[in-house]
């Protein structure tokens, strides 16, 4: 998150994608949330040295991105941004784990390298799945889905409020930060002291805003109870989506499709 404006733009783009109207966008949000969870669980449940068996899972993001008409490059860039964090911890694996597990002709691959590769693939898959979920569902719909799935109402309301005021507050914060930068020459004046008082001012303004919002709610008869939005229907298509993908993930989890395919192609005996 280098620049605040960049972050807001990124945020808006993902939000805009959710406005699409493809067959995937129309699936009930609950089905998509559950499929995403099933996907992530299946992916992370593999052993640390497993690599090949993870590849079939790329089918899911590929298909959803295609059906949902998502910009591949955009999603890929967002994934790339976070991969270094996984790399940071994973890169110690080749150091600590040098047992050779695979010999590809002259090439000996240690467990460390194998598990590092596995970590990177896992990261790509899990991070991608989360981004895709937002891009084909939209944040408010995800919140309502979680609400219907039993998340405490207070938390739903909190997530919706947060999402609504993210844009307002990040822009306000961005303006304030810019004002500080414009008057800071070189790095002077960007220390924690000015940061502290900048945050304090921002906080007080935020607090006053919260009071005004509360006032606006009271003015429209708010009595402390949030009324649920019309509930969506969980149709056959949604069920098929959920059952189909979950079934496939289970299959991929139990049967190493890569291995199977490789064995067939190379003619090795199972």
């Amino acid at each position, binding site marked *: 998150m280098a620049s605040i404006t960049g972050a807001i733009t990124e945020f808006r783009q993902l939000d805009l994608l959710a406005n699409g109207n493809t067959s995937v966008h129309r699936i009930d949000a609950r089905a998509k949330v559950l499929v995403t969870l099933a996907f*992530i669980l299946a992916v992370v449940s593999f052993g640390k040295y497993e690599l090949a068996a993870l590849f079939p899972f790329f089918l899911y993001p590929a298909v959803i991105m295609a059906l949902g008409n998502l910009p591949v490059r955009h999603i890929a860039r967002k994934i790339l941004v976070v991969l270094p964090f996984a790399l940071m911890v994973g890169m110690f694996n080749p150091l600590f784990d040098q047992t050779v597990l695979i010999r590809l002709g002259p090439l000996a691959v240690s467990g460390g390298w194998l598990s590092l590769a596995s970590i990177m693939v896992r990261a790509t898959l899990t991070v991608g799945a989360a981004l895709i979920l937002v891009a084909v569902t939209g944040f408010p719909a995800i919140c309502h889905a979680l609400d219907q799935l039993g998340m405490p109402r*207070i938390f739903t309301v909190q997530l919706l409020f947060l999402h609504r005021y993210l844009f307002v507050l990040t822009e306000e914060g961005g303006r304030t930060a810019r004002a500080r930068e414009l008057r800071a020459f070189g790095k002077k004046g960007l220390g924690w002291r000015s940061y502290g*008082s900048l945050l304090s001012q921002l*906080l007080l303004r935020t607090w006053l805003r919260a009071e005004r919002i509360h006032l606006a*709610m009271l003015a429209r008869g708010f009595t402390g109870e949030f009324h649920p939005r019309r509930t969506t229907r969980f149709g056959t298509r949604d069920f098929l989506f959920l059952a189909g993908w979950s079934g496939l993930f289970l299959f991929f989890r139990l049967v*190493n499709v890569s291995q199977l395919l490789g064995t067939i192609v190379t003619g090795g005996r199972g």
Partner: protein
Amino acid sequence: MHMADALLSPAVGGTMWAASAGAIIYCSRKLRQEMDGGKAPLMGVLGAFIFAAQMINFTIPATGSSGHLGGGLLLAVLLGPAAACITIASVLVVQALFFADGGLLALGCNIFNLGVLPACIAYPFIYKPLVGSAPSTTRITVAAMVAAIVGLQLGAFAVVLETVASGISALPLAAFAGLMQPIHLAIGVVEGLVTAAVVSFVYQARPEIIESVQQARLLGQTPLRKVLALFLGAALLTGGFVSWFASENPDGLEWAIAKVTGAEELAGPEQGLHARLAGFQASIAFLPDYTFKQSGQQPENKAGQESSLGSSVAGVVGGLLTLAMALLSGLFLRRRQRRVA
């Protein structure tokens, strides 16, 4: 630091999810009792505030690098632990979904490390007693500093434990902790300074904000403590179990699946398939020279080692093929989609 999905085993991720979900449900219940309508928008906007605050950086003296606010402790001071916990959790959910910070499975860990620990441990047990009933700027500064440092040390150690217990990363506990704890000491000092500055400012500008939280908190103290004790106990227990589990069985779920379903049944479908496809293989094989010392009957045994040894070439070839097929099917669908549109 955010925990990432890729480093988590499902057992650890699931445990932490359960812990954090429990914390959120508990905090929601508690909030519902004390909720005066105004708290909902306040929590929402303060969450957005934390978000904005994290995007603004400041230079850390003498290092040249930059830092930003974490915010868990600050929110606890402003809102009380329950509301703070929920607010932080919501910020983490948004970060996981929109910025892929951490990931969805790691969300449980992150809510626990960055929300529950500072708001429900560092605030009530360190900050509050240190500040006492008559806050002054000095007291606020000292309390915020100590509480922030302890909170972050706990959080960092939790990350270490979760990572090591998951067993995906090969980092040994001592090495990882030796790396994480000092870094987070520095981060904790900075967090403490900023928190103290903001709290002191608010205390001078709007003293009623902080006083109201302090009074409100007196009511629900005992149950919170009890729950926390329970909570910690459960965490330690599962943590111990999981780490033992991880060391005995590097692949926990594998073992669990084998226990639940019986290993033979698991291997069954593959064998059946193999048998049927056996005739096929000779004719379509394009790398027939390779032979494998395949261990055979159990495609995935305890460590998944021998089998992957034996079948590595097939794995590589098949993996690449599968990957290509997965991506191609996406490409194909996209083309078709375009044509329809």
